[in-house]
């Protein structure tokens, strides 16, 4: 065991007053934080760019509240324990939205490698050893990456997808597993 972790995600909508000028429907912007990168803030659009910024980005979002509204009820987070096993980092967290628990997330990282495709098979084998049938398929972020260097934005993109999936599910009395 190596301490705890927390990943959170807040949702912002483009305010109604600004939609007309863009000629498009309102957009959702996600602002996320990851305890692994305590001085950073990640801002992303689904299928869009991911900006990595320092913590002052949160202050900017307060200044921008006329244009982007924080959907506070949609704030979702995963909190739990960090485990280090040789070169692997495993984080198991409870995903909560407000007061209710909505599921469990498992994040597995193979630390020495930065090219995603080079270590996918190794990750798969490692995950199968303790996740069995729940082992996931190739994350969609790997699809576009090929041989480019994996970055923290890719991790945040995966969490965003997971959180969106969980948000869409009905709240279940028993925690579901990804």
């Amino acid at each position: 065991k190596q301490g705890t972790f927390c990943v959170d995600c807040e949702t912002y909508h483009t305010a109604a007053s600004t939609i007309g000028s863009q000629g498009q429907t309102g957009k959702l912007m996600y602002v996320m934080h990851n305890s692994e990168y305590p001085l950073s803030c990640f801002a992303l659009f689904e299928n869009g760019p991911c900006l990595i910024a320092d913590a002052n980005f949160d202050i900017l979002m307060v200044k921008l509240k006329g244009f982007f509204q924080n959907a506070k009820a949609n704030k979702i987070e995963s909190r739990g324990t960090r485990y280090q096993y040789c070169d692997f980092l495993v984080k198991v967290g409870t995903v909560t939205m407000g007061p209710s628990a909505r599921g469990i997330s498992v994040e597995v990282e193979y630390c020495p490698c930065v090219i995603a495709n080079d270590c996918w098979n190794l990750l798969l084998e490692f995950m199968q050893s303790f996740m069995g049938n729940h082992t996931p398929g190739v994350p969609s972020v790997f699809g576009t990456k090929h041989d480019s260097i994996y970055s923290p934005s890719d991790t945040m993109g995966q969490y965003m997808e997971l959180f969106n999936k969980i948000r869409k599910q009905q709240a279940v009395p028993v925690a579901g597993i990804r």
Partner: protein
Amino acid sequence: GQQASPFVLRARRSMDKSGMPWHLRYLGQPEIGDKNRHALVRNCVDIATSDNLTDFLVEMGFRMDHEFVAKGHVFRKGIMKIVVYKIFRILMPGNTESIEPLSLSYLVELNVVAPAGQDVVSDDMRNFAEQLKPLVHLEKIDPKRLM
């Protein structure tokens, strides 16, 4: 947006140091009671970002108003920063290789980023500005006249 005064953000990057983060800055309206101060005081939020900042700002709904290249020197005296630079017009949008000077003069700017409420800083700035006379005559600007 459709508000009366548009929300302005400034995105800046180094052209001579590779790998540095981009710099995003928000500057608020001049503070009330400003007329008596020797320097222009505005709320400021500075954010370091990854290099996809301009794409991200467009995605957020911002559009580029203008861009320019500044080349010159930075001096520091305590927390005061004095920048002496020439402004260059960019001839083709986004292409920083093809630029031309806006004028033959250099612009001298004295600024300080300080915690809120430290009004005495503007006195220090005025005292420093006095020392630059008659070589440079620094004046407090009124941003409304420029917009």
